[in-house]
């Protein structure tokens, strides 16, 4: 795999260079990372049959990165799960895999069933079990790349919100990541070698794959912002000042949040030369703010679902774009990807016509783990022209459920979702997932979740909940209880900010929850 070969090159050339650093003060050099990953890989091979996916649970510890790499080196897909997720969610992921190894860089609050847990102390022993292997190209381990994941083997499985209330695992192959990375390294026309990359997103959010793979493939440093730092703006700004970062990767919301403080300027981050955005709509006001405060940096917008490896389109955002008064474009397809806009009958539409965005190309994931029927509904095969001679090549395709149009020059504009999926602060959320988890609470009769909009942007979620029994002395306490119980089952970003209690949910003539009546009935803010 080209990604792993790139990392090995830096291990050989600059073993002392820092590969990873976080705001808790921990760091890891390329030499240390390789040594730990190699040791862990041989222990994994001894502990488990090749090819079985491994769950890696923790936050932004150096050991997380070593575990990811160890999985790849030993021919296993890794499943990153951030410790901010409730243990019920972790259990729901583990339950979809057959008794996986669970590398517990952090200890889950309760014991996870149906998993073979390896606690941190053991992991640390594993990581230091062997003396550092030779890293010369002709040394024994580095030449033996036969165990490494490659081509169509799974590199990672990323679990994302599923409409039925159970998360679904997107199977991203080694080839997907290599193909994605080759393109990612060209973004912004900025050389990437030896640069420092800001990491905001948790590793269970595939936005983080952007900076993780770019940093390690180019001999740079991944600078991770731990959640404690992100929760305190005074701490966050101290960390940013200390970062020496060149390349910023985050959700647009996170940059918008920072722009609220007047000290978020090029003086705070003198080296920053590129802002890279993905995961949600980039507002012209955010891009314009960055242009003004960071005159030496470029702003690049990208688009792509987890099912096609992080991102597939890109466009440098100019002040002209911001001033045009129309939503910002999300970019042109990378070489190796074709974007089709489909009509309701599945026909390919013309430029300017709005329809469903379909991605065809060499970074489309294999499918959803263990769910052939669900996969068949959205994944398919198609031909696209690729390479120097524009030969037709058979690749996978994915129907995104996103709405958009292409202009005559092939520029893509995103216009929201066709279904009940929403994006909030970059996180992809199936409203049905929240509704199912609300209904699973013993005192909830029925529930519906709707996004609240302001200027066509989703500001927060509103849950309409009918209770079957009284659960608290006051309405406020009852609503707090619903939120608290829901937060034990779902990630914090999926818990609706506003809860409206009702005796019964309104139904439409078909007997389904009447969503438009809900929208009109109670005016939540």
């Amino acid at each position, binding site marked *: 795999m080209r990604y792993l070969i790139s990392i090995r090159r830096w291990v050989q050339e600059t073993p002392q260079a820092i590969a990873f650093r976080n705001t808790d003060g921990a760091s890891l050099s390329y030499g240390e990372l390789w040594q730990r990953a190699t040791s862990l890989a041989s222990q994994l091979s001894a502990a488990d049959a090749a090819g079985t996916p491994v769950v890696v649970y923790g936050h932004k510890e150096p050991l997380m990165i070593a575990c990811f790499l160890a999985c790849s080196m030993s021919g296993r897909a890794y499943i990153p799960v951030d410790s901010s997720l409730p243990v019920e969610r972790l259990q729901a992921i583990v339950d979809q895999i057959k008794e996986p190894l669970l590398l517990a860089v952090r200890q889950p609050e309760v014991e996870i069933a149906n998993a073979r847990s390896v606690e941190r102390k053991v992991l640390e022993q594993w990581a230091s079990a062997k003396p550092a292997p030779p890293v010369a190209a002709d040394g024994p381990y580095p030449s033996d790349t036969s165990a490494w994941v490659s081509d169509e083997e799974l590199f990672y499985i990323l679990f994302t919100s599923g409409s039925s209330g159970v998360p679904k695992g997107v199977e991203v192959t080694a080839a997907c990541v290599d193909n994605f990375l080759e393109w990612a390294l060209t973004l912004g026309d900025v050389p990437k070698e030896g640069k420092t990359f800001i990491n905001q997103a948790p590793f269970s959010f595939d936005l983080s794959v952007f900076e993780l793979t770019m940093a390690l493939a180019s001999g740079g440093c991944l600078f991770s912002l731990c959640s404690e730092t*992100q*929760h*305190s*703006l*005074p701490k*966050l*700004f101290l960390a940013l000042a200390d970062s020496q970062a060149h390349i910023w990767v985050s959700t647009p*919301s996170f940059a918008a*949040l920072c722009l*609220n*403080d*007047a*000290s978020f300027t090029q003086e705070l981050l003198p080296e920053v030369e590129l802002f890279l955005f993905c995961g949600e709509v980039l507002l012209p006001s955010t891009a314009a703010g960055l242009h003004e405060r960071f005159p030496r940096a470029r702003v690049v917008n990208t688009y792509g679902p987890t099912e096609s490896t992080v991102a597939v389109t890109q466009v440098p955002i100019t002040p002209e774009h911001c001033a045009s008064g129309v939503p910002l474009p999300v970019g042109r397809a990378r070489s190796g990807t074709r974007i089709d806009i489909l009509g309701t009958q599945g026909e390919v539409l013309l430029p300017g016509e709005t329809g469903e965005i379909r991605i065809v190309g060499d970074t489309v994931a294999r499918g959803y783990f263990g769910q052939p029927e669900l996969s068949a509904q959205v994944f398919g095969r198609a031909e696209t022209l690729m390479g120097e001679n524009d030969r037709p090549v058979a690749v996978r395709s994915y129907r995104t459920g996103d709405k958009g149009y292409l202009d005559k020059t092939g520029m893509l504009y995103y216009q929201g979702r066709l279904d009940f999926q929403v994006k909030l*602060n970059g996180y992809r959320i199936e409203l049905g997932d929240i509704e199912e988890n609300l209904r699973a609470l013993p005192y909830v009769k029925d529930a519906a979740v709707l996004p609240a909009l302001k200027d066509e942007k989703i500001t*927060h979620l*509103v849950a309409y909940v009918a209770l079957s029994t009284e659960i608290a002395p*006051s*309405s*406020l306490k009852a*609503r*707090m209880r619903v*939120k*608290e119980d829901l*937060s034990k089952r779902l990630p*914090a970003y999926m*818990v609706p*900010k*506003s809860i409206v209690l009702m005796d019964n949910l309104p139904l439409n003539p078909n007997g389904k929850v009447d969503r438009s009546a809900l929208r009109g009935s109670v005016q*939540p*803010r």
Partner: protein
Amino acid sequence: MDTDTQLRQDIIALIAEVTCEDDISEERDLDLFESGLLDSLAAIELLVGIEERFGVDIAPTAVEREEMNTVNRIIAQIEQRYL
């Protein structure tokens, strides 16, 4: 029951708007972050609202979460600066 000053009533109204919680005055020592009523973005929204309505400028990087995590503490922060 003590009646709130106009300023306090206005502050509580602002917090109710930002948290989408009309009954927030019932629980003035409730940790708004822990209870999920405020997050980083909403906290900024609150600071922007405080500046717009009361002319009190609190830079987001000037206050820690623990200093503004309940209705009573937010009131105290504003009253301290309000002239």
